[in-house]
């Protein structure tokens, strides 16, 4: 059903989000799951590692909102 053409900015947002999800779900679990050190922000490694990616994702999501998820001015969610 989807005929929506993605803009370059929209594609970039989705790629950055996918990188974030992949980093939170895969490397963290497969490669660092038994790491306790180094502590990050006073937390054991896995906690601090996820918090760093959380901050990254929040920045991307805020950017996505500000740019109407990559749509030009006046599009992408303005009230109709």
């Amino acid at each position, binding site marked *: 059903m989807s005929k929506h053409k993605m803009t370059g900015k929209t594609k970039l947002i989705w790629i950055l989000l996918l990188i974030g999800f992949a980093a*939170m779900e895969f490397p963290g679990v497969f490669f660092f799951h*038994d790491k*306790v050190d180094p*502590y990050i922000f*006073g*937390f*054991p490694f896995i906690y601090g590692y996820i918090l760093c990616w959380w901050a990254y994702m929040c920045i991307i999501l805020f950017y996505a909102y500000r740019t*109407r*998820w990559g749509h030009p001015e006046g599009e992408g969610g303005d009230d109709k």
Partner: protein
Amino acid sequence: MTGSNIGALVIIGLFMLIPLAMGAIAGRKSIPTTEDFFVQGRGMGSVAVFFTVAATWWSAFAFMGSNAYFYLKGPLYWTAIAWNIFFGILYFVVGKRVWFLGKTNNYITPKDFFKHQYGSEALGNIIAIIMLLFTLPYLQIQLTGGAYLIEVASGGIINFKLAALMFYLVIIIYVWSGGLRAVAWTDIFYGILLFFGMIYGGMYIANLLGGTTEMFEQIRVLKPENLALQENAWMAWLAMFIITPVGSFMGPQLWTRMYAVKSARLFNLMPFLLGLAAIAYIGSMLVGNSAVVLEPGIEQADKVLPVILYKYAPFILASFIIACGAAAAMSTANSQIHSMSAVYTVDFHKAYINPNLSERKLVWVGRWCILVLSAIAYVMALYVPGLLVNIGLVALAGTAQVIVPTVGALFWKKSTVAGAISGVLVGVILLCLFTFVPGTVPGPFAFGGGGLLSLLCNIVVFIVISNVTKPRSKELMDELEKQYDDFYAKKY
């Protein structure tokens, strides 16, 4: 019962009375129509939507179950940070389209969506039944969580059965009085309490042990396995990341919150707001981990939060945070009861039992339905044991099955009724098998991935059967095509 216990119950009682007053005011504003009672006339503003979605999404599962998981299994529940963001993304991608189609076609319940999009009453009924069946255990854990809080706050004088009964009477009164408007108003109140209660409570308890680093150093000595994920935990980590947000998002209470939204713009903002709010889990993480040092022998892990707070935090602070916990459970429970009542009233009572019932009488059927569903959940809370998170995960894996035909309807022209029905049935049957006979879960899925496996099988069956069965009618596809064109033309 000591003076402190009485004081704690008075504080919790007051927290229940304030939203009750809101419910009464909301009740006066309501119009006796099903659209107003169930989807607030599709006029819910941005602030109310965010808080009602967040408060409905954060339940006893999050507020109490998370503490128990951090206490028992270390960082496994920390995948919640990612699943909160994923939930927000689902709200943006799927929610906005469902909202648009709901507004265009006047959908009130989830069944309306499937019945129209697939042109099949049978599929709509199957989805409605799955939602009702699998929302009940999720409702049960809200009741259980709330009852634990009251039981601990009273020093055990009010037993679990009575505490659960008290908890539900208040919820029934709210929902009975004002429909979705009452639920949304009370959720704003609850949402604010929840966010600050979770973070502040965790920081306070961790500071008793000398701060976070010092607390974790003590765990390194006492229970080092709690500082890292266990072997094979990756499956549960991944399964929870997918099943929890998808299952919750597909619950009838969240469908109602998609239909009720006034402006499309909010859907763009929700991923950021929900992602940001995920930081509140830091509070549960700190409480659960601190409890490993402070109280290593708690038998019922779901009581970690109230036990630790009443023992180690100042009385007023403990009661305030416990009231927040009651709020978490109550806000989800009232939303669930309300939406389940909508499903029964509109999808079954109006459709099959009494199609000529007036709008006013239908609202009354909805209210009586609220009473009956609450009673069922109450009985389940008394007789179905288990950790809150474990019961919740089964319930969520059930409603998660609905995402397959939903995404199929929105994004894949080849989706067919036969594919959708066979997919969800295979998914639900496998989930039941994996739940009641855990030994049947194969390979790595045996480590907490039964729900995920059932969802994957649902997807495979859906795609295969849709490819070999009769497509949806041309008339229906033309009609839907026009609506999707309209959606993209308006550039929502």
